[in-house]
């Protein structure tokens, strides 16, 4: 076996592959975060709404998504769901980047289910009087939530939401199963082309670890600020 040597990763094709993978992973993280936060807020609202039907809907969403592995979500949204679309949509989807669209759909729905629970417990930690005061001032349920409860709750929920972001960052790696060219995919590609598994996996581990540590550091800092 050759000596451990990271230098060959730092130039030429391999570097470009790995960097493009890392960039795509970060993009997946950013887009999913942007989409799943509002969705999670919506689901949390459903679970707290003054209607049993809406509560049930919210609970069903969370339980149905959380009790199925992310891998199965990816398989469904990539192989199954596009078949359900009308033909014109399907053609357009297959012509575009269907892998990325499926991956973002699966990741967004999955992450939102977890985040909804964090936001819900954030909301429940706000004293009930705040809500009553809002209603007594004449605000509707939604307006009270939007103007008075949610801004306070998001501040409380920030540390757990960041730890969900950490999970999301690691979960982007599973997108490799449906052929999204993210970091894990490019690592396997470099490994297959160069037969240097140690170097390729060291690079990927370090990249995942660094981003994870940044997010965890942010969470610790926020935790201190909140308390």
């Amino acid at each position, binding site marked *: 076996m050759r000596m451990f040597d990271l230098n060959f990763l730092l130039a030429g094709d391999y570097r470009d592959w790995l960097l493009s993978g890392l960039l795509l992973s970060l993009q997946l993280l950013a887009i999913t975060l942007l989409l799943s936060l509002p969705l999670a807020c919506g689901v949390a609202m459903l679970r707290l709404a003054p209607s049993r039907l809406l509560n049930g809907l919210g609970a069903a969403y969370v*339980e149905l998504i959380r009790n199925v*592995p992310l891998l*199965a979500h990816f398989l*469904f949204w990539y192989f199954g769901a596009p078949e359900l679309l009308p033909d014109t949509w399907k053609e357009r989807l297959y012509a575009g980047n269907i892998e990325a669209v499926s991956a973002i759909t699966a990741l967004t729905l999955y992450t939102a289910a977890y985040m909804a629970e964090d936001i819900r417990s954030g909301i429940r930690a706000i004293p009930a009087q705040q809500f009553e005061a809002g209603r007594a001032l004449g605000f509707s349920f939604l307006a009270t939530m939007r103007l008075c409860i949610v801004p306070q709750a998001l501040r409380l929920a920030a540390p757990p939401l960041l730890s969900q972001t950490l999970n999301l960052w690691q979960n982007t790696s599973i997108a490799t199963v449906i052929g999204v060219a993210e970091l894990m995919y490019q690592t396997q590609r470099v490994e297959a082309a160069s037969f240097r598994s140690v170097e390729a996996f060291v690079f990927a581990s370090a990249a*995942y670890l660094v981003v994870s*540590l940044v997010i965890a550091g942010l969470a610790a800092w926020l935790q201190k600020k909140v308390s």
Partner: protein
Amino acid sequence: MLELLHDYWLYFLVGRYPEGPLGGLALTVLLASLALVLSLPFGLLLGLARLSPWRLLRWPVAALIHVVRGIPLLLVIFWAYFFLPSITGHESGQFGTMLAALVIFDGIYLAEIVRAGVQAVPTGQVEAARSLGLNYLDSMRQVVLPQALRHMLPSLVNQFVSTIKETSLGTIIGLAEVSFIASQVNGLVLTKPVQVYFLLGMTYFVLCFSLSRAAFWLERRQARLLKAAA
């Protein structure tokens, strides 16, 4: 969908067994159970090391926990896949690889559960045990751990749910667990991806949801018991 179930239910449940190796849902459950059972002692040791009064033990374990929690399980599986053979000297196969990766990964997460469980035991208990003349290890073993384990039970059931979900990643290294079998069935039928993957999702859901309900029930019972004791 019924036709699909009728044709492939046995393949889905046990794979090619008894003609070939065990697979399908049975393999998923077996792998998850073995992983949990084997990672428990590992997690207990790591958790206690993390809490130990000796810095030389505490710091390396804390570093290990941070590193493993910072990388995706998929990467742990690949490390195991490529380097287990060179450490043990012989091929470990997909099942062995997956089991090793899960034991390491779950052990790390269990260590944090153990830590939380031990920290939830009032410090007066340790002080009482120490003042009765028990040394550190004995007071842990005889006084703190039995109480901590009771606190940990709901978290352990939840960890089992996570482990079941994690076994699905075995597909990537070609382990014939239930997701892999579903993809095989999809390849055989070709025309029904929606139904095949919907069934796969529902199978996981039934398994995991009933377990997470059990955890919820345990948690509520524990809260009641604690209230009654107070």
